[in-house]
């Protein structure tokens, strides 16, 4: 249910129609051309079904498929062009990667250094173990100002903790000011992309959403992106000029100076960071960089990877409070929420190097087809597939997040574009191994198959016998040479692909015939 103008109250995922409801599904908001995809779940890092189930539904959404294909191909081309013009791109990636690795190993000292420097400049630092604690801190800070409205800069971490819903329960309305976040919020939806949360929407859907939900959209609004953006400008301007409290995330926090950075395009970030009296910034403890000078690396890597620009239009850097300029009250909330747990895994922790550029989403062939909602987390795509399960841990074998590390073909496109060189394919495999190991006590079909295959392949004699037994496939294939239909679970293959029958002669049989026919004793040698 919406409270007013689309501001959401918390809903349980269980009351929803199965995952992403198709347009027009009863029970969701019905507009001529759009419907809420994923209403706000209880757990922003774990909603809905397993990845394969959610993907199955997403794949059937023609509009989504088209929107995603268009958007991801556009941004891929932009990124490739601006990265291509940097002669030392690989050296910058090396620097980004090694700096982040040092941040992880030095994190305790760096956090204390950051705290010291922010405090010295008039900021107040808070620490939150989890989402509930962070939400409590922020809610109390807002209440202390006496305000019932806040403006927000787009922030993944506040999505992660469900801050807007927590504020709403306490009677505080949070207004998202990033255009895409505004679209998502008005539609009572969840983001489907780290950078472009409304990437699953096209212009005509956005027009419908504005007309229905914005309240002050011009009635003659067309679907031209320029007109839509101007409608958002007009809608938000009054909010910006009157807001007393703003909430932001942070792209970087510089330990040696206490400086925070927000990287943005529209100017909504500057509005929120500059005009209100009180600024509350929530950031994950991993978003540190050691020195101010390190900005020369990350500000080179992030915009080109993210929006495909040489530099984003606006970056704001502030350190504590500057008398007479900007908010005179500044709070920084440092959030753990599973990060220290991820840090304890010395392979998996590389996921914490992420600077949230979203380049891996844009190049991922899986993401391109199923979109962000199928991942059931505010962090979708390849990075989400390694970050989400580490942040949440596993609640057991029915945890849908267990399916995330398998949501990849290991094609490696994500690693190629990652500005901090997170070896995502290797991490996916690592997390698969963790999943398998935690489930070892339980017999599964996969486990049995893998154990059997291991047994067979550990000894050549067994493998050869298995090859001969495979002659049975020739029966399945009949005279066509191809198997066109197998019962479940083989049908998962043969629904779309034929399977060849095994040849009459394996390679090793051919080799024995060809190379050792005259002298069986020399099997294994060349002729």
């Amino acid at each position, binding site marked *: 249910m919406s409270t007013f103008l689309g501001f959401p109250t918390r809903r349980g995922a269980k009351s929803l129609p199965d995952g992403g409801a198709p347009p027009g599904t009863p029970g969701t908001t019905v507009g001529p051309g759009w419907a809420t995809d994923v209403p706000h779940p209880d757990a922003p890092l774990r909603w809905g079904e397993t990845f394969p189930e959610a993907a199955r539904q997403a794949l059937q959404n023609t509009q989504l498929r088209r929107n995603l294909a268009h958007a991801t191909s556009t941004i891929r081309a932009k990124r490739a062009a601006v990265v291509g013009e940097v002669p030392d791109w690989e050296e910058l990636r090396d620097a980004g990667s090694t700096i982040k690795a040092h941040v992880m190993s030095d994190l305790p000292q760096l956090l204390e250094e950051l705290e010291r420097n922010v405090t010295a400049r008039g900021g107040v630092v808070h620490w939150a173990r989890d989402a509930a604690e962070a939400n409590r801190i922020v809610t109390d800070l807002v209440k202390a100002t006496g305000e019932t409205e806040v403006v927000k800069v787009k922030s993944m971490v506040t999505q992660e903790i469900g801050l807007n819903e927590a504020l709403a329960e306490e009677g505080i309305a949070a207004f998202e000011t990033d255009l895409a976040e505004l679209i998502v919020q008005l539609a009572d939806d969840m983001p489907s992309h780290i950078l472009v949360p409304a990437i699953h929407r096209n212009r005509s859907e956005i027009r419908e959403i504005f007309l229905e939900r914005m309240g002050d959209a011009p009635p003659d609004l067309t679907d031209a992106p320029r007109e839509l953006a101007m409608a958002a400008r007009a809608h938000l301007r009054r909010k910006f000029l009157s807001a007393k409290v703003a909430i932001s995330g942070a792209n970087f926090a510089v330990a040696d100076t206490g400086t925070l950075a927000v990287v943005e395009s529209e100017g909504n970030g500057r509005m929120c960071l500059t005009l209100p009296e009180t600024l509350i910034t929530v950031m994950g403890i991993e978003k540190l960089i050691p020195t101010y000078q390190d900005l020369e690396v990350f500000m080179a890597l992030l915009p080109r990877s993210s929006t495909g620009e040489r530099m984003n239009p606006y970056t704001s850097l502030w350190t504590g409070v500057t008398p007479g300029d900007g908010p005179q009250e500044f709070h920084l909330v440092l959030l753990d929420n599973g990060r220290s747990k991820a840090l304890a895994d010395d392979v998996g922790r590389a996921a914490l190097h992420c600077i949230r550029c979203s380049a891996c989403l844009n190049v991922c062939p899986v993401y391109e087809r199923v979109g962000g909602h199928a991942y059931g987390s505010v962090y979708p795509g390849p990075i989400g597939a390694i970050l989400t399960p580490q942040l949440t841990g596993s609640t057991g074998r029915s945890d849908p997040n267990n399916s995330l590390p398998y949501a990849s073909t290991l094609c490696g496109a994500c690693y190629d574009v990652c500005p901090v060189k997170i070896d995502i394919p*290797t991490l996916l495999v690592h997390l698969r191994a*963790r999943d398998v190991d935690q489930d070892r006590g339980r017999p599964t079909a996969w486990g049995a198959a893998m154990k059997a295959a291991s047994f067979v392949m*550990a000894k050549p004699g067994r*493998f050869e016998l298995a090859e001969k037994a495979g002659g049975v496939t020739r029966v399945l294939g009949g005279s066509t040479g191809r198997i066109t239909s197998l019962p479940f*679970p083989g049908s998962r293959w043969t629904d779309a692909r034929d399977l060849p029958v095994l040849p009459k002669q394996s390679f090793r049989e051919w080799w024995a015939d060809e190379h050792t026919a005259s002298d069986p004793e020399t099997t294994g040698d060349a002729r």
Partner: protein
Amino acid sequence: MWSDHSRSMVYSGSDTVWSDHSRLIAEQNPGPARAMPRQALAARRDQTESHRPLPGWSPPVRIALAATCIADAMFPQAPQATVRLLERLGHQVYFPEQQTCCGQMHVNTGYFDEAVPVIRNHVETFAPALDGEWDAIVVPSGSCTGSIRHQQAMVCRRAGQERLGATAEALAAKTYELSELLVDVLGLTDVGAHFPHRVTYHPTCHSLRMIRVGDKPLRLLRAVEGIDLVELPGAESCCGFGGTFALKNSETSTAMLGDKMTNVKSTGAEVLTAGDYSCLMHIGGGLSKLRTGVRTMHLAEILASTQDAPTFEPARSDDETEAAR
């Protein structure tokens, strides 16, 4: 770790591990009189995109073939063609029959414990290469080469099998995907093949991004006499196979496969080729299902083809089909 973006060697930390280790092995194992391994290892150490042929090298090189489990059982034409090609070029090919599989399937599905005995078998099978029995190991698969190079040692070490891991790493340094062997080690791009057909090439993900063969397969194909090589649109996109991905996420896999097949069809090619039979099984399975008439052939099959012994079969009688692709 996977290969680095712009370099053909591996990622940061392990980069040095690889180089140092291969030097160590070269020193420990003087190798055969021809000193081929030492040169080959030197070539690996300072790999760049364009390798020069090894100076002073002359055939025959003694090459052990890792046929791969999938090709051994299902697509014997690929290792057969590899043997014929290398023998035609004057080299000695060995097939150590103890071999089964590199363990990739187990590793990529997360069954590390189960992968170890498979890797052990692979390592034991090819260990004689470290004693100079063979000069190089060839694998007609980018994916299996990638697993040998980037996964075997890691999995062994995680299981506490340090020595096995070290040996696996040493063997990996002598292991080449087919196009790497031909171009980097043997210094060839024209292998004297004849293949008068319209062909398009799919650069499989692991060849492209895990071991970074670059344009070596294309250079080999361009030199084939009579070939009509056409570019595949969206070539670098994954076909959706991903090993068990095709089963665990079969519908997403199918969506990716559909786009790949559309691109293949748009080229008008008779033959889709690649350096991996796993991907060819996937795309070929789809092409067969839709009766497109496009056939799949391994890169080795095209390179093995000559005017006298063509590998292209215009049509297969159903009964005689080795493998309907």
